[in-house]
């Protein structure tokens, strides 16, 4: 005679478990979005730092004026590019850095110029390596988030909220060889 109570309890339990599951999925997705944002901030910081290091090298009087100009222009373009041209400008800076570093005897000449020169050189190469790492980590986060957003549950329920679908950041980021 208390069958209906059992039924109600059963369905309440089902609703509760579904609720827990959906909330767990929502938490995971939210965590992925946070991860994308953090990775993006780290990538932006790495790019800014690389441009700054390139500018410092260009302004250091360690290079000949023509090389300085090439580097300074590329770094300036990268820093001032709008969202649409950012990827092109950053790729150009990567290429400019490689061309500059690939000059014959570039490294040995600069390391012979003293401690300050060595520091600037190390700063540029660290910054360039970090851009490559930061971009990989960002794109990795984006890829996983995009996969998660394609899952049926996430498409049916508005679990992603108003977070936009993140986009990949595609540039040539091969660091200069040292």
């Amino acid at each position, binding site marked *: 005679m208390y069958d209906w109570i059992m039924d109600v309890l059963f369905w309440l339990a089902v609703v509760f478990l579904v609720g827990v599951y959906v909330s*767990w999925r929502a*938490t*995971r997705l939210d*965590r*992925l979005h946070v*991860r994308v944002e*953090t*990775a993006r*901030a*780290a990538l932006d*910081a*790495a790019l800014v730092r690389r441009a700054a290091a390139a500018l410092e090298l260009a302004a250091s009087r360690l290079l000949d004026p023509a090389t300085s100009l090439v580097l300074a222009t590329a770094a300036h373009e990268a820093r001032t590019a709008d969202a649409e041209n950012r990827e092109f400008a950053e790729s150009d800076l990567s290429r400019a850095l490689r061309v500059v570093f690939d000059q014959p005897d570039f490294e040995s000449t600069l390391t012979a110029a003293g401690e300050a020169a060595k520091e600037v050189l190390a700063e540029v190469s*660290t910054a360039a*390596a*970090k851009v*490559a*790492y*930061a971009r*990989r*980590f960002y*794109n*990795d*986060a984006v*890829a*996983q988030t995009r*996969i*998660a957003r394609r899952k049926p549950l996430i498409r049916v329920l508005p679990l992603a909220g108003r977070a936009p679908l993140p986009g990949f950041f595609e540039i040539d980021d091969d660091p200069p060889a040292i």
Partner: protein
Amino acid sequence: MRVGIVCPYTWDVPGGVQQHIRDLAEALTGLGHHVSVITPADDDADLPPYVVSAGRAVPVPYNGSVARLAFGFLSAARVRRWINEGGFDVLHVHEPAAPSLGVLACWAADGPIVGTFHASYTRSRALSVAAPILQSALEKITGRIAVSEAARTTLVEHLGGDAVLIPNGVATERYAMADPLPGWPGRDRNAAEGGALGFLGRMDEPRKGLQVLLRAFEILGPARPGLRLLLAGPGDADDVLERVSPELRDRVVILGLVSEEDKIRAYHSVDVFVAPNTGGESFGIVLAEAMSAGAPILASDIEAFDRVLAGGRAGVLFPVGDHEALAAAAGELLDDPARRKQLSAEAREAVRAFDWSSVARDVVRVYETVSFGGAGVVESGAEG
């Protein structure tokens, strides 16, 4: 930086991952970072001061072999406490897809987590089956590192996403000093003794190129009565001797499979270390070890060796598979002690680029990238 490293396999059982973690932890400490490693270990194990035990590992069948792994409530609780008390800036989990401490650590922590993937399989059933279960833990890894191109491919195929490549380092210091093997004068021999050429690698694997060296010895041997050949590595000794002319056989010494210690002594026993590989090498770890020992190198001109030898500056390159060129180059080196001395110094210098301190520098760059913002690692809430 405060770094927490998670080792999935029992500490005192020899293995590539454990060795990697030991070398990395020591290199990081050398750079002035604070390192704590948590690992499965037996209760009476003798652990270095920076290592914390998470309890005993249990042998379980996993991925086609028996692995000693740590899991269960006790391990989980110890990992959670270690994270809680560690105050780490970054957590570094090794082999996070293995059902051991790595997964537990990912579950128990929030914040910057770096994951290093070591293994490479063409197809892993375990990994394919486990991927959905592991997904929520692996999603928390904010920076992935692969130690080889093969490991990276495995990771991308089974788990999606991407990883940066930071290869293993060479513990150059471990090879730097050793006495030659008994009966070998080593590199300080006087000019009257005949000298020695060395080889290390699978003797029955054609891509390691032993046949090229043996053919070159047929040219060199008769012309240089004192010259000996020192061969080490797995393979059948009789098979090798069969390929040597009878009058030269007593000058070919075959050590077979050698211990780590004898291997290092072997590098110090020869005048020229020969790497006649015909291909298939991605890095040349043996070459890097021989260079760390300061052995003058004569290697075939494959891409990996050209890179390790700094384009031929730190060792002599000869055309792949050309035994006459090998014999000619070896002859020149044997006759020129000054050149050998110079190559030895150049080799030691060039191999520093592959030293653990360089690897640690790259790993620190990864730490700094993922810990951007500086929130650090915290114990995660109740949810997984």
